[in-house]
């Protein structure tokens, strides 16, 4: 495939269709997750989403400002302990604690960031790594009422349970066995949505542009009048308050916080999530959180007997696998999963930007392959691949091997591309009607459309069936 | 193609291209440096002078052909090119500020395996007595002129066949520059060392050089003997301020 399957002008009707399709997938994913998963799996999902917020905070410093922050576990811890203490000891509501947590995080960010960000170089990495190492010990201090507030080495539980209020009880999924965690899932999703919106706007604002300018060319930004220490510190402090917010969400989700949860290893988990997802992209942070939890879960199940010795992923080696992933990604996929996904996307669709006149900078027709088009064939292959992979995946899921299982699981996802095949085939048939394609494309295009429609229908029916089965 | 203008060619550069990322800085340079002679490359800021010297030493991504004497050194690594006898005094002198003057000279002889290093040090101390006085001082504490002397002396420590000098006059007082160029001239006459100097100070450079090139936007636009260039109206207007 030299040219992408679909070429659309930015903001054209067809481009919007693509965008809606993406939103639809995202919405379907979000909606189905709490309905389909078991309660303990929803718990994991919640944990992943909380990590996503923290990774977003790290990304703000590392990905968008080019500074190295390695200690956000401490900010999470601060947020979590402040929340636990306010809710448990002072009987506040969670939403009342949010501003407190944000302000405390911001102040801590200024205190830690300012000394390090006044000077150029790796100093922020130095300070933050020490910060991450020190934090768990500070929790245990008996004096000043600290241990009383944090629960010391025993950790602190919050007895108030987060459950859906009566007026939301009619919603599917917030009642019954998985009610608690599913409700918390929704709260977390809403909070993430708001956070994402704020962060996106922040990055587009004047200070946000200064932050990006510093990453791209520090000296250049300084020359244009950006006050480097102030902007860097402010950005770090905002990142710290988002990290604290993640801590609040952690407390809200688990109802229990302990110093051992916020060690240097959590900080490294955040960095790994950042790299896995994609440094410097908003989507990367979200994807990164999901993958950290998923990979962590996966490695635990690895057990490969090697003669006398069994390679066991459920022990310390889980961390080694993370380390290996970190190094491999740094070498071979520095853009993370998001950049890999973008490569796939580039094969499928190309969005042509608009010139100031509102016209595409290059006419869409110029991308049309004309009589030589192979798009119909590609669409057919895509539409056939869906069901075939689904079938293979289904069969392979029965093989009792983790690696095969993972691939089989991923394999089945190809069915999700069925609507793409329908869309491309329809386009090709339209072009054929206009006399731009030879008759020979009709067969493949029709096949692609038919199989694609079946595949789409299958996806919808399957989702509906899962939904009904659970209720 | 390059006409063989010289009886004996010290360095020959053919169709040299160089780029930093997507920016092409040199677009097909052709020039020669006469053995035992002094050649100079003149040009304004950003014309590609420094890049030319860096490209000769293979310090940026290049294409084309660079021949030292009879050897093709286009694809040779920088460290190996130095071993073949090319000494490069980079722009901004490139001394080792945290090392003493003496250590700076000793590292200059890094590629040598013979036992005459000490004799050479003595020799350069005779020529540059200021360096002898300051042999135990850190190079970073020397004055600009002294650092330039040190950089040249360090480059000469590897007993080069070809000395590349990148804007030796940069940031120095006029009196010191004149003194420095005088020393370069003497050095060339006494030892027959081949020199290629890149300069903005055209007056001084043409005074001591035998042959010169003018480089503009990554291309050689003019070449000729030093006298020819000095009398060329275009050169006079652009570089000599006449």
């Amino acid at each position, binding site marked *: 495939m030299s040219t992408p399957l679909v070429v659309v002008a930015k903001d054209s009707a067809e481009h919007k269709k693509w965008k809606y399709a993406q939103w639809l997938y995202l919405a379907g994913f979000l909606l189905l997750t709490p309905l389909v998963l078991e309660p303990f799996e929803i718990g994991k999902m919640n944990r992943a989403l909380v990590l996503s917020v923290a990774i977003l905070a790290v990304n703000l410093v590392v990905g968008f400002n080019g500074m190295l922050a390695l200690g956000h576990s401490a900010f999470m811890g601060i947020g979590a302990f402040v929340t636990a203490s306010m809710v448990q000891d002072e009987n506040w509501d969670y939403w009342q604690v949010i501003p407190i947590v944000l302000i405390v995080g911001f102040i801590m960010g200024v205190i830690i960031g300012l000394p390090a960000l006044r000077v150029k170089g790796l100093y922020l990495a130095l300070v933050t790594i*020490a910060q991450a190492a020190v934090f768990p010990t500070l929790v245990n201090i008996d004096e000043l009422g600290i241990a009383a507030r944090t629960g010391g080495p025993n950790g602190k539980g919050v007895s108030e349970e987060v459950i859906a209020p009566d007026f939301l009880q009619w919603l599917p999924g917030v009642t019954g066995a998985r009610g608690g965690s599913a409700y918390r899932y929704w709260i977390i999703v809403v909070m993430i949505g708001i956070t994402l919106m704020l962060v996106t706007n922040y990055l587009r604002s004047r200070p946000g542009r200064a932050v990006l300018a510093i990453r791209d060319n520090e000296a250049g930004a300084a020359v244009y009048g950006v006050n480097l220490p102030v902007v860097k510190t402010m950005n770090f402090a905002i990142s710290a308050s988002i990290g604290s917010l993640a801590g609040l969400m952690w407390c809200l989700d688990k109802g229990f916080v302990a110093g051992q949860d916020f060690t240097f290893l959590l900080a490294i988990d955040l960095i790994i999530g950042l790299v896995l997802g994609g440094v410097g992209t908003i989507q990367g942070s979200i994807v990164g959180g999901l993958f950290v939890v998923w990979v962590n879960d996966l490695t635990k199940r690895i057990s490969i007997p090697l003669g006398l010795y069994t390679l066991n992923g459920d022990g*310390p080696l889980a961390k080694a696998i993370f*380390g290996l992933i970190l190094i491999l990604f740094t070498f071979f996929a520095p853009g993370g999963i998001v950049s890999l996904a973008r490569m796939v996307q580039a094969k499928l669709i190309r969005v042509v930007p608009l010139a100031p006149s509102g016209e595409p900078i290059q006419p869409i027709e110029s991308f049309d392959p004309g009589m030589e088009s192979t798009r119909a064939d590609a669409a057919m292959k895509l539409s056939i691949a869906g069901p075939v992979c689904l079938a293979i995946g289904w069969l392979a899921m029965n093989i009792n091997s983790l690696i095969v299982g993972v691939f089989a699981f991923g394999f089945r996802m190809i069915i999700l591309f069925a609507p793409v095949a329908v869309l491309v085939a329809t386009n090709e048939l339209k072009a054929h009607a206009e006399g731009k394609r030879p008759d020979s494309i009709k067969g493949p295009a029709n096949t692609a459309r038919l199989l694609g429609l079946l595949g789409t229908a299958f996806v919808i029916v399957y989702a509906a069936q899962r939904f009904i089965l659970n209720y | 193609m390059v006409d063989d203008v010289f009886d004996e060619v010290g360095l020959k550069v053919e169709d040299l291209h160089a780029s930093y990322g997507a920016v092409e800085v040199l677009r097909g340079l052709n020039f020669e440096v006469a053995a035992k002679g002094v050649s100079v490359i003149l040009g304004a800021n950003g014309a590609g002078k420094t890049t030319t010297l860096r490209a000769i030493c293979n310090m940026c991504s290049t294409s084309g052909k660079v021949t030292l004497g009879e050897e093709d050194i286009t694809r040779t690594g920088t460290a190996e090119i130095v071993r073949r006898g090319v000494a490069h005094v980079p722009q901004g002198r490139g001394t080792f500020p945290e090392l003493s003057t003496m250590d700076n000279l000793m590292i200059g002889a890094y590629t040598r395996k013979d036992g005459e290093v000490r004799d050479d040090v003595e020799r350069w101390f005779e020529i540059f007595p200021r360096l002898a006085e300051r042999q135990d001082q850190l190079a970073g504490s020397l004055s600009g002129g002294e650092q330039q002397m040190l950089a040249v002396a360090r480059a000469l420590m590897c007993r080069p066949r070809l000395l590349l000098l990148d804007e030796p006059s940069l940031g120095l007082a006029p009196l010191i520059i004149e003194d420095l160029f005088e020393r370069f001239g003497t050095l060339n006459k006494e030892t027959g060392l081949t020199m290629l100097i890149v300069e903005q100070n055209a007056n001084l450079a043409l005074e001591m050089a035998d042959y010169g090139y003018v480089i503009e936007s990554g291309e050689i636009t003019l070449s000729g003997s030093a006298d020819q260039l000095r009398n060329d109206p275009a050169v006079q207007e652009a570089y000599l301020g006449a």
Partner: protein
Amino acid sequence: MNWNFDVLPDFIFNGLSLGAIYGAVALSLVLIFKATTLINFATGELAMLGAFLVYVLHMEQGIWLWLSMAIAMGLSAGLGVLIERTLTRPFDPEDHLPVVLITLGLFLIINAVAGDIWNYQVRILTNPFGKFPDWVPSLGGDRYVEVLGSRLKYQSIGIWLTLALALFALSLILNKTKAGLAFRAVSSNVESARLVGVHTGRTLGFGWAIASAFGTLGAVLVAPQLGGVNPNMMATILIYALAGAALGGLDSQGGAVLGGILVGLIQAVLVTWGGVVVFGQLYMSILQLAAAFLIILIVLLFRPAGLFGTRRVERV
């Protein structure tokens, strides 16, 4: 308040001997930082691995302790060279993120592999300086000598002597050998070093080798104070060493050693003696690690280049 000066020398001796080890690890950090402007976060784990090599060679294979140490230092030096060649050289050192990620990845891998092989239990490693040797008059067989009314352990004396010897050897290597000269040249100006014919890659590998060997030495010496070797033994020591390096100046080798010693003294005298003995506040002992963090913050606030470092001028 309880100004108990009688026990103060105890704390000073303890601080000095811990500080010497922080200094050794800080030196390991600084050797690499100075040449590449990279903070090697895997320093501590490499050192821990070296200590385990000594454990295997000496405790399990029964090789003479000092020979085991020499072999382990050689092996970790080789590992350092290998890491430099395969993992860090492909990246532009000016771009910090990839290299830091690599060292963090190494941190995880080494720690986890060691944990998988040797579990997370503390394993006893023979103290090279347990008792005064018999040839020492009137002290042979004792664990300590009375100085100023306090017990100065043979272990402390041994640590000081060993590290002094190692530092002397290091300064000989750096100042009197050609490879050392090349290393100093690369640390000072990479570009110019290449222009005098130094193979910068090999030279950086040499730096990694020395740094790793030094880290191993530090880990072996500190092991008896921790009760033995275990995979997490270097976690806090690395933080103290970072504080020491920051205090002394990240680009000063002598500064790193002195900075490490100062951090050890601050930890033992200011925090433990001052806090616990004088003011009777037990929580002060929890603050030992926090003190390292505070030192880094304070140094950055008031003297970012450290006590002995030079402020690098940023050229644009």
